[in-house]
């Protein structure tokens, strides 16, 4: 009953698909022509075709590194979800815990991860250090969004639950958790991108110490060897991974909320 009119949505949908493609093709063409017209050597700026060729030629090494980075990101995100949600539930059940622990969460969040990474590399084995870095960056949006959601329950609904004598657990699971779901999913979408950033930053920090095998390490390594096309190829893969993570989490959000939440509804034209 809330569908957009077909004519408008067909044109709109075509436009949504066509415009980004046109813009992307145009940008690539401009990039290639700048390289060719100025005769730039590949170690200054490789053209997009050379980057693509390198991507295919080095796929063996690069895909392995991509998997490493993706595995770190996914694991960090999983831990961030577990930790962030559990901590948010703890905050929601005890104001005292919230007041005492929230400052720590904020400190972890505002301290630049690039500054924490070298320290973690002293105490932890590189792979664990990278994972912890990615986790630190990813967990805050989950924690703060979920905590906000758990606290943002309609007052009349709270009264209704009180009227029927609902205890703390029933109120939590039948009211506060579902009410927090849209907030949590919003946090998750941000955290997915941040987990990748955290992993990349920590890999670079670890890579400078001569270890690691993720995509970011490939960039550093290729930089030392002046293999600029390969730097671009690895960078391209990181971007694509970020886009894919965002798309997957957006889909999760859409399908979880589509039956009831405002954010997932089609608007009347």
């Amino acid at each position, binding site marked *: *009953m809330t569908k957009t009119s077909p004519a408008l949505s067909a044109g709109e949908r075509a436009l949504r698909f066509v415009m980004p493609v046109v813009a992307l093709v145009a940008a690539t063409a401009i990039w290639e022509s700048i390289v060719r017209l100025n005769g730039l050597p590949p170690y200054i700026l490789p053209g997009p075709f050379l980057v693509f060729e390198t991507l295919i030629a080095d796929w063996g090494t690069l895909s392995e590194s991509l998997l490493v980075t993706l595995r770190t990101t996914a694991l960090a995100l999983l831990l961030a979800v577990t930790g962030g949600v559990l901590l948010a539930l703890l905050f929601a059940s005890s104001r005292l815990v919230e007041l005492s622990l929230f400052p720590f969460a904020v400190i972890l969040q505002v301290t630049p991860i690039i500054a924490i990474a070298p320290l973690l590399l002293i105490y932890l084995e590189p792979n664990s250090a990278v994972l912890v870095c990615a986790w630190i960056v990813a967990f805050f949006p989950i924690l703060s969004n979920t905590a906000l959601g758990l606290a943002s329950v*309609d007052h*009349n*609904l709270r*009264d*209704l*639950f*009180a*009227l*029927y*004598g*609902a205890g703390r657990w*029933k109120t939590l699971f*039948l*009211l506060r958790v*579902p009410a927090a*779901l849209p907030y949590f999913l919003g946090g998750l979408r941000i955290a997915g991108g941040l987990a990748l950033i955290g992993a990349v930053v920590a890999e670079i920090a670890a890579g400078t110490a001569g270890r690691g095998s993720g995509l970011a390490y490939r960039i550093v390594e290729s930089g030392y060897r002046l293999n600029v096309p390969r730097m671009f190829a690895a960078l391209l893969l990181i971007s694509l991974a970020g886009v894919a993570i965002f798309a997957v989490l957006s889909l999760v959000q859409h399908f979880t909320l589509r*039956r*009831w*939440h405002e954010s997932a*509804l089609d608007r009347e034209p």
Partner: protein
Amino acid sequence: MPAAAPAASLNAPLAAFSGVGKRFPNGVLALDDLDFSIRSGEFLTLLGPSGCGKSTALRLLAGLTEPTEGEILRHDADAREIGFVFQDPTLLPWATVAGNVRLPLRLKNIEGQETRVDEALALVGLEEFRNAYPRELSGGMKMRVSIARALVTRPQLLLMDEPFAALDEITRFKLNDDLLTLWRTLHCTVVFVTHSVFESVYLSTRILMFTPRPGRIATEFTIEAPEPRAGRFRTSPEYGTQCREVSAALARVMAEA
């Protein structure tokens, strides 16, 4: 003369306010020295200007907040079995119509849920919408779901806080009539809060008029109407006369304040 409930139980007090005062934590005195009783089977309306504390009186009656002075007596165990309808439908957006109506039963761990849910949905005429989500319903239908949810525990006391204030007039008139039918068939007691003189005269057997803040009872009306009331009462001379009387009293109360 209300013919809704058996005459014997009609005058029996179900609950009573005795010297009840309510001061909010911010120092505002919402209610002052409130004394009245709720008789079994009546349709009692608390009428008054916005902010006069009538909603607070309803919340006190529901036990959602405690009085700062006086006490609320619940004479009958039935008076603890309460249905509450808020001004907004206040539905869980993630649950279907049936899920929303089932909620009080889940919260109170009552068995035999599905039959009761079906009954409650039938009372408000929403059987066909049991699997719809709240966002798919109109404002009037959402309010019906809210009423079904309040009725599902079969309460003796139904408390309604300006439930139809946000609805258009045609929907409101329809729901007024449906509410009267429910009240007659279920033999329950209704305490209804409104700021509409016309709505209060149309629905009630008795009206308590509140003064502006701090809310006290200024005066009381008993509404005489042929039962069962139907749309015809709305256009009758008796209705007009009583609306005029209540309006005049309200004007006096507002002038004195």
